[in-house]
């Protein structure tokens, strides 16, 4: 091996999958992955619009390529992945050399999630560069009609889907690999991925107001610019080391490249918006303060405050150190305290928003629309408070989840029943057709339902339980409802690592429900230890076992055991979210109008 990057992140005994995925294990590789994904996106966009949007496409291509040039410049001048291994002699001369083996991949990255998590997340990050390119192209060319919005929506949704999946895969990786029993720690890297997701979500909602009412053009351009800049800023945060200390920023050159590019992109975007302001001014108005449009504005408000809270908490240590000279940490407790109330308000809007009609909603119809979901939620919330928990946020979260779930369910039931009556369809056929013939609306509802499932999963953390147990071979112990028997403690040697592990049988009501093997591995090349968590998953809860090593007598396994309720709901919710987004992404059904006519005809006949 004579390439420094290869020697730093691989070794000869590393399995082939991890040899390939070591591509994005380090800084230079991650930046190269940005360029690679952006090339793919640019290629796809160019092919897709090769015969259309002739005024926008040349400028959009230029904007995408400016981003490309920036990232390739970083690879050329700041983080070169093709740097050769060299020896520095006393006289300053450099001699290239070949290493017999590499230092190996960080054990934490040797996990299946790490094969797909970074590319998925990058598909999201980089994907947001495409709608940004369309927006800037529209501003430069002066073609500020609906074209760029229509082109952007699908690409934004596509990027948003990958960003969501990437975030969740990152959470899953943290959960099964880091061994602390959780999936989200409000780490700056996690926050960096969340921020553009939040503004992207805001854009996907507010863009509908422009589509329907030709309003909020400046707002939409600003949102997509913010999303793009947050993607770059996120990469800057994670790559410059600025968050760990303001002093780290000055040490490397990469931070300066990022700051210059972000300021330039921001300056050009603001200048273009100001230049085109007369054309971006709204000519129409809201028909009523009680309307879907207004609810979307409040949704945008809450999303942006949430994004600010995350950004603020992430950069505050830098700000504080610059002002007071003293280093502080803004950790998970801050983010939880600030973001939980905001997230709950957002959850409420997820359910309330669809109850408002476009243009205008009368108070009477609003009361009617709120009635059933509210009653169901209050009854459900009351039962939860009476029998399950008195945790205030927990009760509110479960109650709101029931409210949103009821809203979505009622929408599906009403639509399905209408189709059943009109077309005499079987419920499953009616439901399928309902979704299929209006993918955007019902795909959106599925995404909202996915958020409910995710919130239920997150709220389950209020019931988390953990304990530490020392167990020898043949010993039996109890953790909550589980009876655990330590069947064996053993050792194994593989070419890549040595492992020490416990073999556990888990019983519930005398039935064996799981056979677990938590491991403590020591990777030979990198000389680093790592845990392999053993998991027994169910809809109700996860039994999560970490092998922390042997006790002082070297005869007993030290096991850190967690019982984490409802975590599986989080992963199921993520899958539903991707499914809903995919449905939204499918092309609209061309025979909608014909279908509507049939429905109306059938209804008229039924009335007679």
């Amino acid at each position, binding site marked *: 091996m004579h390439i420094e990057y290869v020697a730093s992140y691989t070794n000869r005994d590393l399995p082939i999958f991890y040899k390939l995925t070591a591509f994005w294990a380090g800084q230079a590789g991650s930046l190269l992955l940005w360029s690679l994904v952006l090339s793919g996106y640019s290629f796809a966009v160019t092919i897709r619009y090769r015969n259309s949007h002739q005024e926008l496409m040349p400028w959009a291509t230029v904007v995408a390529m400016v981003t490309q040039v920036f990232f390739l410049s970083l690879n050329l001048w700041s983080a070169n992945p093709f740097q050769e291994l060299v020896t520095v002699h006393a006289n300053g001369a450099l001699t290239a050399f070949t290493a017999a083996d590499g230092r190996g991949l960080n054990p934490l990255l040797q996990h299946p999630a790490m094969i797909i998590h970074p590319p998925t997340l990058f598909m999201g990050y980089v994907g947001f560069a495409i709608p940004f390119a369309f927006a800037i192209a529209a501003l430069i060319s002066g073609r500020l009609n609906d074209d760029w919005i229509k082109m952007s929506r699908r690409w934004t949704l596509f990027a948003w889907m990958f960003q969501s999946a990437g975030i969740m895969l990152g959470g899953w990786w943290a959960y099964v690999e880091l061994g602390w029993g959780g999936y989200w*720690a409000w780490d700056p890297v996690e926050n960096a991925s969340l921020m553009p997701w939040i503004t992207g979500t805001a854009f996907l909602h507010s863009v509908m107001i422009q589509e329907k009412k030709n309003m909020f053009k400046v707002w939409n351009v600003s949102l997509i610019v913010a999303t793009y800049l947050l993607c770059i800023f996120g990469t800057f945060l994670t790559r410059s080391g600025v968050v760990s200390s303001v002093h780290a920023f000055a040490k490397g050159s990469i931070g300066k490249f990022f700051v210059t590019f972000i300021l330039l992109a921001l300056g050009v975007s603001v200048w273009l918006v100001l230049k085109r302001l007369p054309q971006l001014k709204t000519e129409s108005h809201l*028909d009523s303060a009680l309307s879907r449009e207004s609810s979307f504005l409040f949704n945008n408000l809450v999303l942006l*405050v949430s994004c600010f809270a995350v950004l603020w908490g992430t950069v505050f240590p830098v700000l504080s150190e610059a002002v007071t000279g*003293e280093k502080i940490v803004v950790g998970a407790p801050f983010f939880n305290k600030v973001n939980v109330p905001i997230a709950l308000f957002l959850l409420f809007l997820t359910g309330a928003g669809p109850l408002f*009609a476009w243009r205008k909603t009368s108070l009477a119809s609003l009361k009617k629309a709120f009635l059933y979901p509210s009653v169901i939620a209050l009854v459900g919330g009351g039962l939860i408070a009476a029998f399950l928990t008195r945790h205030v946020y927990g009760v509110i979260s479960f109650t709101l989840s029931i409210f949103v779930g009821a809203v979505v369910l009622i929408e599906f039931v009403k639509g399905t029943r209408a189709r059943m009556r009109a077309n005499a369809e079987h419920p499953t056929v009616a439901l399928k057709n309902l979704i299929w013939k209006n993918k955007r*609306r019902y795909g959106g509802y599925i995404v909202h339902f996915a958020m409910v499932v995710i919130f239920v999963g997150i709220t389950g953390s209020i019931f988390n*339980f953990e304990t530490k147990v020392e167990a020898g071979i043949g010993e039996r112990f109890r953790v909550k409802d589980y009876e655990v028997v330590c069947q064996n403690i053993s050792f194994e040697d593989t070419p890549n690592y040595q492992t020490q592990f416990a073999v556990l049988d888990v019983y519930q009501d005398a039935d064996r429900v799981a056979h677990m093997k938590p491991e403590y591995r020591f990777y030979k090349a990198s000389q680093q230890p790592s*845990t392999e968590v053993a998991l027994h998953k169910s809809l109700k809860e996860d039994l999560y076992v970490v092998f922390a090593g042997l006790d002082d007598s070297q005869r007993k396994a030290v096991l850190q055991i967690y019982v984490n309720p409802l975590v599986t709901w989080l992963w199921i919710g993520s899958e539903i979210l991707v499914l809903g987004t995919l449905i939204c992404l499918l092309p*609209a059904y061309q025979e909608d109008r014909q279908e*509507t006519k049939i429905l109306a005809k059938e209804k008229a006949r039924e009335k007679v």
Partner: protein
Amino acid sequence: MKKYRGAWTTVAIWGFLSLVPLQDLSSQGGSSHSTKLTGKEAQRFNALSEELICQCGCNLVLGQCGHINCPSAIPMRNMIETMILGGQSDQEVLNYFMNEYRFRDHPPVGKAILSQPATEGFDLVAWIMPFVLFAVSAFVTVYLVLRFSRRTGVPSPVSAAPLAEDDYQKRIEDELKRTE
């Protein structure tokens, strides 16, 4: 419609059953790393573990650091346990850690061992700003909604090119209104 009533009942039963696993969670509660601490002491231990950041470089709160044989988390946890058993207050425990770690790093750790900003001095800004922004932007949003909705004289065009799906949905909703 009668022939499909069974299908709706099935959906309702399944919907109810999906909530059943939630019912027996009420017995679950808090936790502790320590075996010597019980009741309120264990709760204090857990709360203090959330107040402090592990100094091994993981940047996680002490309660979350899952490093095997962590050179920082283990002595910190032991010290918290000793101080709780020794009858010291939460603030005394936090003060101890702030003083203990003040000169161990450059720039000095001091307050950086706490997991969240203090509620005094410049750090107070960290807590206030999100809520100030929320209040200001809520005010601006309400103002904009009222201002835009009070404008008169300008027609409210639907979209320049209405979507086929909107048309379909509007008709479905009209149908539903008529049947309700």
